[in-house]
């Protein structure tokens, strides 16, 4: 109640201060009304009109005094003073537009990137997932078979579990052009578990994820808008998805992202609990669970771990004894964006550093200006401005500057954010990222902090000066050396911060350059890759699919632009990795021996031309030929790494193995060189290549075309050729194979480019800062230089002296920064891709270039110092 009253009073005072003109007008009108009534009474008492007015005024007393006291009562003195200070600051800033522009621009360069990066950090890391009680949502890692899901659903008391599948593509046919859409399969209760309701219609109901249930589909909001123009009658329609008619159940709310990536359609997972082979060989996707209120991550993990033996025993075949041992419950948000955290934190640290540098820069600008404004300060002090008032005036000026900088910075941030969002890896975006009230609030706080940072030192200086002036020690005598020390300290700080930033950027950029130079082990020049998705429902048998693959190769090879054509079920960097365990014949079976299972990081079916086309050298034996088809003995080619892993004695050729759950024996007939598969760093993957004609892939396949033609020119003929084979086949991602590789380093590129840009800003600001402070110091010491030169110092001597001082600052700053950089190296781990966090070349280059920049920036002031005319300087201003 009392607080409320106080607030109301404050509001009234604010209105009083701000609506000054209106207030005056109202008061005048009120007082005039009173005067007129007085005069009226006098008239009624029988006076002449003139006399009545005169006496009224007399009776009323001192009108101006009343107005003055009225004003006092209505306005807060503090706010009045603040308004005065702001007006004064604005007038001052207008009077020196160059200074103002420099300060505002510098602050904008600090605040803009901070705001943009913070909005990303906020959207990705800080804001909870857009689901009710999202803190109770977890991902269950290391489990995911349909059988495991069903077991958990049936027995778990601590949590509810559903599954969200991996992104898939689906063919839409039946109306107009066949279209390939992105989609995902989820279990029936997934939306209910997350707390997502349909925007139109309903989501899945229990039982709709069982084999034999009515085929249904949900539409994403964007897809509904794009394909059906917001037609609500869509609920009465069906959609032909992968050749199956599905009833449209509903439309999902807009902006639904994770954990669904960005699907266009959502289908139910189809599970048949009675089919043991199906449920224990197929995964349902990521298991997403909601903890019950009384349970914790620990209790739920304990419960799930207690299910492991029973689940392992339910598999119709032997599972490795360590299956499920990696069982972990991870908060869903962390599960989804955990990988992005270090990169974003690094960028956050970098922008904070840029902001710090910008603040230091403006602080030293203000300090220099304060020195130039001595006369004015002395005048104000002698006119009775209290030191407190002077302090406040300076802080207000800093606040106004920071405010202007924030406005410019937010404008800059908008542009920057648009760029960031283009570069930001898509899987990291969990929700809306934008500059909203929350981000603006943080920016405002940061700006106030910046104002204090930039204003407090100059303000204290000015206050100290006002104090001295008040005791009569002002004027010219008071050119203390303290200000010079403060400026030097600021510059050293600034250089230290710039050093840290440049070191980080240098190391990360060097790591990234190393990535770019990494040889993936296969030809990327002159190879166009594309993903082909045939409508699988049209090819129910392996034989039909095998024929389709052969027809596709033949049709594309007939194109004049195609020099060679290969097909594979997963090209390098296709984003469809897939490994496999296998069992080597003649060795103890891993399930019974308890040893580790042989594991190939990659199991890929390829057509005969694959190795030649990608120029993957053959090490021993042979690659596939057209003869390795159905009905002949199954053959495999292994990579050098896989051979070294499991046949270290060089006896890989001729070795025979099987896959669990399959009886066909495959013989190794060749060894090829290693290639990079998913990423350019990390351990070399071991690859197991199979003949595509023998292991037919039921899924999308990648087409590799050796050609001189540009991908854009190839797209139309390629599509036509494929549609001649099957008009419902879709084609995606037609691009140079090199760009597929490049896509794998999106995130390192994002980090490296941004860090590099921020470091460039830091370097620029650092140079400006050194220049500003040195120029200021030289200007202030004109008399000293004059004396020195009059006493015989040479031009070169004076220049050298200034440069030596700048050099000392640079050494101090860069030295501090290098030490800090060594300490900060840990933050960079994971971004360096093989470069040591103490890489001497980077440290040397950064120290050298910053030193050079600092000296160059000091060079101009140094020359000016040497050009001081001794006589003029000595004579004084």
């Amino acid at each position, binding site marked *: 109640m009392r607080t409320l009253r106080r607030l109301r*009073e404050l509001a009234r005072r604010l209105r009083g201060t701000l609506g000054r003109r209106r207030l005056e007008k*109202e008061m005048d009108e009120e007082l005039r*009304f*009173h005067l007129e009534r*007085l005069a009226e009474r006098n008239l009624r008492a029988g*006076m002449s009109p003139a006399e009545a007015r005169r006496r009224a005024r007399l009776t009323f*007393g001192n009108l101006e005094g*009343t107005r003055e006291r*009225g004003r006092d*009562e209505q306005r807060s003195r503090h706010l009045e003073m603040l308004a005065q200070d702001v007006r004064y600051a604005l007038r001052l800033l207008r009077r020196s537009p160059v200074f103002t522009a420099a300060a505002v621009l510098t602050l904008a360069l600090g605040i803009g990137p901070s705001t943009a990066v913070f909005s990303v950090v906020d959207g990705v890391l800080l804001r909870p997932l857009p689901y009710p009680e999202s803190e109770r949502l977890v991902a269950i890692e290391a489990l995911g078979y349909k059988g495991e899901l069903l077991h958990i659903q049936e027995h778990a008391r601590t949590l509810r579990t559903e599954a969200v599948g991996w992104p898939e593509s689906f063919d839409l046919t039946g109306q107009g052009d066949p279209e390939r859409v992105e989609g995902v399969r989820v279990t029936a209760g997934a939306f209910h578990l997350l707390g997502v309701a349909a925007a139109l219609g309903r989501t899945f109901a229990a039982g709709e994820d069982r084999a034999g249930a009515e085929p249904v589909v949900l539409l994403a909001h964007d897809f509904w808008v794009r394909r059906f123009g917001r037609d609500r009658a869509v609920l009465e329609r069906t959609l032909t998805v992968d050749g199956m008619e599905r009833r449209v159940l509903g439309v999902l709310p807009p902006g639904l992202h994770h954990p669904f990536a960005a699907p266009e359609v959502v289908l139910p997972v189809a599970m048949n609990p009675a089919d043991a082979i199906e449920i224990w060989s197929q995964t349902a996707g990521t298991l997403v669970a909601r903890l019950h209120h009384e349970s914790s991550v620990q209790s739920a993990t304990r419960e799930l771990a207690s299910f492991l033996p029973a689940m392992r025993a339910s598999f119709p075949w032997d599972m490795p004894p360590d299956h499920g041992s990696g069982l972990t419950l991870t908060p869903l948000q962390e599960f989804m964006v955990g990988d992005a955290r270090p990169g974003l934190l690094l960028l956050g640290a970098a922008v904070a550093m840029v902001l710090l540098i910008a603040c230091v820069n403006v602080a030293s600008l203000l300090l220099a200006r304060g020195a130039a404004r001595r006369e004015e300060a002395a005048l104000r002090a002698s006119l009775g401005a209290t030191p407190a008032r002077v302090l406040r005036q300076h802080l207000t000026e800093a606040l106004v500057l920071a405010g202007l900088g924030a406005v410019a910075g937010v404008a800059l941030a908008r542009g920057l954010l648009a760029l960031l969002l283009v570069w930001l890896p898509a899987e990291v975006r969990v929700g809306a990222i934008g500059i909203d009230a929350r981000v603006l609030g943080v920016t405002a706080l940061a700006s106030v902090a910046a104002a204090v940072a930039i204003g407090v030192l100059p303000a204290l200086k000015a206050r100290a000066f006002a104090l001295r002036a008040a005791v009569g020690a002002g004027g010219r005598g008071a050119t203390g050396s303290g200000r010079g020390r403060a400026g030097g300290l600021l510059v050293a700080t600034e250089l230290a911060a710039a050093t840290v930033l440049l070191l980080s950027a240098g190391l990360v950029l060097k790591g990234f350059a190393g990535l770019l130079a990494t040889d993936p082990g296969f030809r990327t020049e002159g190879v166009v890759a594309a993903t082909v998705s045939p409508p699988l429902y049209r090819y129910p048998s392996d034989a039909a699919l095998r024929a389709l693959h052969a027809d596709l190769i033949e049709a594309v090879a007939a194109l004049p632009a195609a020099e060679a054509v290969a097909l594979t079920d997963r090209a390098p960097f296709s984003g469809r990795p897939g490994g496999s365990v296998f069992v080597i014949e003649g060795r103890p079976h891993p399930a019974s021996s308890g040893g580790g299972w042989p594991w190939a990081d990659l199991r890929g079916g390829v057509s005969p031309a694959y190795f030649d086309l990608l120029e993957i050298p053959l090490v021993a034996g042979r690659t596939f030929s057209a003869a390795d088809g159905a009905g002949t003995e199954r053959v495999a080619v292994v990579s050098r790494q896989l051979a070294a892993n499991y046949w270290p004695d060089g006896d890989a050729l001729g070795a025979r193995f099987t896959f669990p759950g399959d009886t066909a024996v495959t013989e190794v007939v060749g060894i090829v060189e290693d290639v990079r598969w998913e990423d350019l760093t990390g351990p070399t993957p071991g690859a197991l290549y199979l003949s595509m004609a023998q292991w037919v892939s039921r899924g999308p396949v990648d087409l590799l075309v050796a050609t001189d033609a540009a991908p854009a020119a190839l797209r139309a003929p390629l599509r036509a050729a494929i549609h001649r084979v099957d008009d419902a086949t879709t084609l995606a991602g037609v691009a140079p194979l090199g760009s597929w590789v490049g896509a794998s380093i999106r995130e390192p590129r994002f980090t490296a480019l941004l860090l590099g840009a921020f470091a460039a800003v830091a370097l620029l600001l650092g140079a400006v800062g050194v220049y500003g402070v040195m120029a200021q110091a030289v200007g202030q010491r004109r008399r000293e230089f004059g004396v020195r030169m009059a006493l015989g110092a040479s031009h070169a001597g004076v220049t050298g002296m200034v440069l030596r001082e700048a050099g000392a600052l640079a050494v101090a700053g860069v030295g501090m920064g290098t030490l800090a950089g060594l300490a900060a190296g840990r933050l960079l781990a994971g971004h360096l891709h093989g470069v040591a966090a103490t890489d001497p070349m980077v440290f040397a280059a950064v120290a050298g270039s910053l030193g050079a920049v600092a000296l160059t920036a000091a060079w101009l002031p140094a020359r000016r110092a040497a050009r001081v005319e001794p006589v003029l300087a000595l004579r004084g201003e």
Partner: protein
Amino acid sequence: MSPTSRRHPTPEEARGGEVIKGTLDLLILRTLHVGPMHGWGITELIESGSDNLLSVNQGSLYPALYRLVRKGLLRSKWRQTENNRRARYYELTAAGREALGHERATWERLSRGVNLVLAGGPECEL
């Protein structure tokens, strides 16, 4: 006869007592307890209500009104007067009504004390 000799004396001229500093707030609150009124009306009501014994100095009336508004005891609104003039009317807020009670009690205590002293109790022989 000159017009001056015919007129009634104004309250000031009737040498009505100047309102004691500190009681003006109470008088304003009491006057507005009846209903909203403008500054002039408050003056008139205090003067007539006190049988012209009290007069209000306009120089302190308006600052006092603004102060009471600032304290949240009054609020003001522009309205038409009965003669179709625009005037600022003041009225009590809930807090103002509450304050009136306090001020009145305080005043009554004070005046009773003053009266007792002036009447001269047994211990106060003059």
